[in-house]
């Protein structure tokens, strides 16, 4: 590893440097970056191989009790929120900032003192040719797309793609911006969940990961309607909630929320996440209408029964409800089948009970998130793509035009994409000198 050194001045530390200085050098070195990134990658591997944030029973199925205790102690069951992981990320940020500033400082310095090379240096470059029938000014004007950035009356420097040299700094800064954006989200944002039946209104949500903690939304959400449509194969095709936002007693917004199309109000976004159904059963008991949910108990006079089971399809006879009751000290159950007339009505503990309707109402499951940092993250995303573009799809090249005694000497060099540059340079030679 010691054989090849970059120009970043990480060479052997002179004995006179202080400890602080050498710590600074280590923290800002590319070697430290490689180390920290490797550790982060390894933690990510652990964080996917070991199930994260699962209930203890799940771990105990897989590991022994002592192994689970060790995993829990090392926070390997919740890697991405573990303090040591946050420390790793912080070290990465420190390194990235120091490293980038360090390099940028040196880059600005070298940029400031762009030296015009000597005629001898130019005539030693690999890509070069001599023009005899044109003047230096004319040659310079032929280089379309290049701009003259420095020079005197003898040597002139033309450049193209110098923006690409800023690519690295743009990319590194974007990563910092993205991390700042996510930190804003972690500190000032929240994520939660709310379920709404048709017609229901709520003003609180249940926070994720905090055991059912309810948090006020600051406004009310009402579900006016909810619809699910299915493909012929039975898979869900679309689910849509028609929501109403009620703020200060006034209906301020009405919108359809479907998967991939959230609704945002006052910085809080509401996403269609899931749905479920709460079947309700209407019974006619001796001329009286009773509505029961699953697990619901009817108790009046001497009649007591409980809805214990609901099936959408009982042996192809359509939906059915199982009811349990006690008769002569014996627990008994019986099925009510909605679509079979003779099985819709039964005697339960001496009373005539009839299943009149099964209402299978869907409720909507909405994910709610408030993330004030998201625009910072988006800005970082846009910047990093721009940085990657200028860094990887543009490259910096230089052309030198030198007035000499036997004509105009043209030479060129690029640090990257040497092969492509050689071909480009060959084209310039043909254009300026003709294919001789």
């Amino acid at each position, binding site marked *: 590893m010691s054989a*090849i*050194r*970059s120009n*970043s001045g990480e060479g052997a530390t002179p004995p006179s440097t202080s400890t602080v200085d050498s710590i600074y050098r280590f923290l800002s070195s*590319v*070697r430290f*970056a*490689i180390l920290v*990134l*490797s550790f*982060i*990658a390894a933690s*990510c*591997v652990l*964080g*996917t*191989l070991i199930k*994260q944030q699962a209930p203890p029973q799940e771990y105990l199925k897989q590991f022994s009790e002592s192994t689970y205790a060790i995993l829990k102690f090392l926070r390997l069951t919740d890697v*991405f929120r573990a303090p040591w992981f946050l420390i790793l990320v912080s070290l990465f940020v420190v390194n990235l900032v120091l490293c980038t500033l360090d390099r940028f400082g040196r880059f600005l310095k070298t940029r400031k003192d762009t030296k015009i090379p000597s005629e001898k240096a130019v005539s030693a470059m690999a890509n070069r040719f001599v023009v005899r029938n044109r003047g230096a000014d004319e040659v310079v004007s032929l280089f379309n797309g290049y701009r003259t950035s420095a020079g005197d009356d003898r040597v002139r420097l033309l450049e193209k793609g110098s923006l690409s040299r800023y690519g690295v700094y743009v990319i590194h800064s974007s990563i910092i911006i993205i991390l700042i954006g*996510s930190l804003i989200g972690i500190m000032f944002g929240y*994520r939660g969940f709310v379920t709404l039946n048709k017609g229901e209104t709520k003003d609180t949500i249940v926070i994720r990961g905090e055991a059912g903690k309810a948090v006020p939304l600051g406004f009310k959400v009402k579900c006016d309607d909810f619809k699910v449509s299915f*493909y012929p*194969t039975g*898979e*869900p*095709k*679309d*689910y849509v909630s028609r929501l109403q936002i009620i703020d200060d007693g006034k209906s301020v917004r009405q919108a359809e929320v*479907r*998967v*991939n*199309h*959230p609704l945002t109000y006052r910085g809080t*976004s509401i*996403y*269609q*996440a899931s749905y479920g159904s709460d079947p309700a059963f209407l019974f006619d008991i001796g001329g009286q209408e009773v509505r029961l949910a699953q697990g619901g108990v009817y108790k009046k006079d001497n009649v007591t029964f409980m809805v214990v089971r609901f099936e959408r399809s009982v042996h192809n006879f359509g939906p059915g409800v199982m009811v349990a009751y006690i008769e002569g000290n014996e627990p008994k159950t019986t099925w009510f089948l909605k679509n079979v007339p003779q099985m819709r009505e039964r005697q339960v503990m001496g009373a005539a009970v009839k299943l009149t309707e099964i209402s299978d109402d869907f409720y909507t499951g909405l*994910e*709610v*998130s408030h*993330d004030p940092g*998201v625009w910072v*993250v*988006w800005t970082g*995303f846009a910047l*990093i*793509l721009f940085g*990657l*573009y200028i860094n*990887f*799809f543009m490259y910096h090249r230089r052309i030198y035009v030198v007035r000499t005694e036997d004509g105009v000497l043209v030479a060129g060099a690029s640090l990257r994409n040497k*092969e492509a540059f050689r071909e480009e340079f060959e084209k310039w030679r043909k254009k300026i000198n003709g294919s001789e």
Partner: protein
Amino acid sequence: MALNNQILGIVTLLYVCIFLMHLVFFATKKEKVYGAMWLVLYATFGLHSVGLIVRWIESYKLGLGHAPLSNFYESLIFFSWCIALVLIVMRKKLKAPIITAFAAFVALFFIGYASLAPSVEKGIQPLIPALQSNWLHVHVFTCFIAYAAFAISFICGIFYMFQWKNIIPPKDTLEEITYQSIMVGFPMLTAGILTGAVWAHYAWGSYWSWDPKETWSLITWIVYALFLHARFTRGWKGKRIAVLAIIGFGSVIFTYFGVNFILAGLHSYGAS
């Protein structure tokens, strides 16, 4: 069998043909054979594209209407299409027939597996609501172009370990192709991760949730970021760089297949 499956079946045979033409070239050393191989590759790529478009059109006829990017079969077919595309785009840089031979073989392997394996569902399936988004196209496209470019760097990395005069190109050429392809793959992977994050924000309400697929794409990204820094800043050369290219592709393969089959998560669409 639907028309798209028939076309893609013919495309599979054409990839076999491309691989065989490479073998003929290695045996005879006739440049003409290699030139003809490129023509067949262009034609194959054209027909492959037609196959994808026909599948897209057929999905509308079935009333499902979505781009052929949604299940395992479609992702395998699309992956080999991306490999062919990257080969064509990088033609000038891939100066070694052994590289194109193996890249064509990888493309053949994936499309062949998709067409022949009985466990791979070949029909057009409905698109679940979470996948019904325009982000699907740009996300899958950028990711798979990246995977294809990384496949080429992987092939170079493997050949770096061997020597075979006149068949395996010199080490310098291999190294050059390795990082040329990573320089294509890395920005594409970044774009793929970012478009995925934006999409996740609109579909699930969070741009990053440490889902196994997300996490593995980050691991892959870190490996290639390490590659670039080791190569350009620390000046790593030779075997170490080749090893990094191999590890990187191992991570790609795990992101693509391993996560679907071994780890469960939000992202298990490609598995069925």
